[in-house]
């Protein structure tokens, strides 16, 4: 498994520099382009193909802050498949409330102001999330790799999952 940060020659971070990531992606795309290996040995071709697909994956990951967060937490051994994780009840309650607002709207016994209220609530939660998360990932990126800090970031990661899920639900209304 290729480490995307090593592949791009950048430090492991929750906030990789987008300009550098983009430049690296283009550089490696050219470097490992299949056309350049059409005359090469089979083994060399296979390696180029492997690196080219790693490059695509690296780009998809590091170009997206949520995917990057998940990736770094995995590298740090903080996320397990199908792991059980409990978020604070107060947060779950907020998620319940927000989902209920959307259901009210969906059942069409509530007007646009309900959707507006939900949208406003989500905006505030996303803003809070940004404000809480920025200093945490900042600490990591400046050298604090403690389990305590990573645990806090992990909680933020799972909170964001809920917020994104609700956002997705809201966006599905816009297109109907």
């Amino acid at each position: 498994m290729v480490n995307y940060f090593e592949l791009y020659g950048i430090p492991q971070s929750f906030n990789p520099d987008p300009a550098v990531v983009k430049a690296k992606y283009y550089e490696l795309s050219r470097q490992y382009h299949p056309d350049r290996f059409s005359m090469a040995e089979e083994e060399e071709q296979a390696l180029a193909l492997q690196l080219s697909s790693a490059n695509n994956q690296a780009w998809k990951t590091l170009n997206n802050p949520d995917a990057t967060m998940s990736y770094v937490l995995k590298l740090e051994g903080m996320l397990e498949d199908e792991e059980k994780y409990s978020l604070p009840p107060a947060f779950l309650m907020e998620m319940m409330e927000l989902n209920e607002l959307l259901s009210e709207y969906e059942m069409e016994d509530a007007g646009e102001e309900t959707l507006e209220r939900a949208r406003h609530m989500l905006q505030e939660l996303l803003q809070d999330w940004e404000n809480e998360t920025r200093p945490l990932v900042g600490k990591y990126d400046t050298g604090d790799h403690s389990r305590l800090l990573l645990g806090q970031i992990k909680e933020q990661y799972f909170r964001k999952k809920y917020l994104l899920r609700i956002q997705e639900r809201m966006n599905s209304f816009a297109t109907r």
Partner: protein
Amino acid sequence: MAYSEKVIDHYQNPKNVGTLDKAKQNVGTGLVGAPECGDVMRLQIEVDETTGLIKDAKFKTFGCGSAIASSSLATEWLKGKTVDQALTIDNMDIVEELNLPPVKIHCSVLAEDAIKAAINDYRVKNGMEELVLDEKKH
């Protein structure tokens, strides 16, 4: 992936969707979530104080069809049981009844967790000791 008929039935006609008054002494509320999928489930029981039987159960689940079906089935099973009997409901019973595929087993675990959380809330409210819940994987 194809859902079983029972899942579809519970999903389309969920039983016992709603809310009980969580301020009441004889109502226990469990609120649990599966962060990886963004699911959130609330399950409530109302205990008849004279008979000690669960006389009503309600749920509200935001999640996939299997999560909704699991909690709907759970509320059906809860009614008429004593609180202690309710504790013996195992997620694998839900899996079997609904024919859940392996990738959806975590939904049944969520429902079992919700039952236990509701019971714990009821116990604490009524001066009983909180149960230590075993760590089952989702």
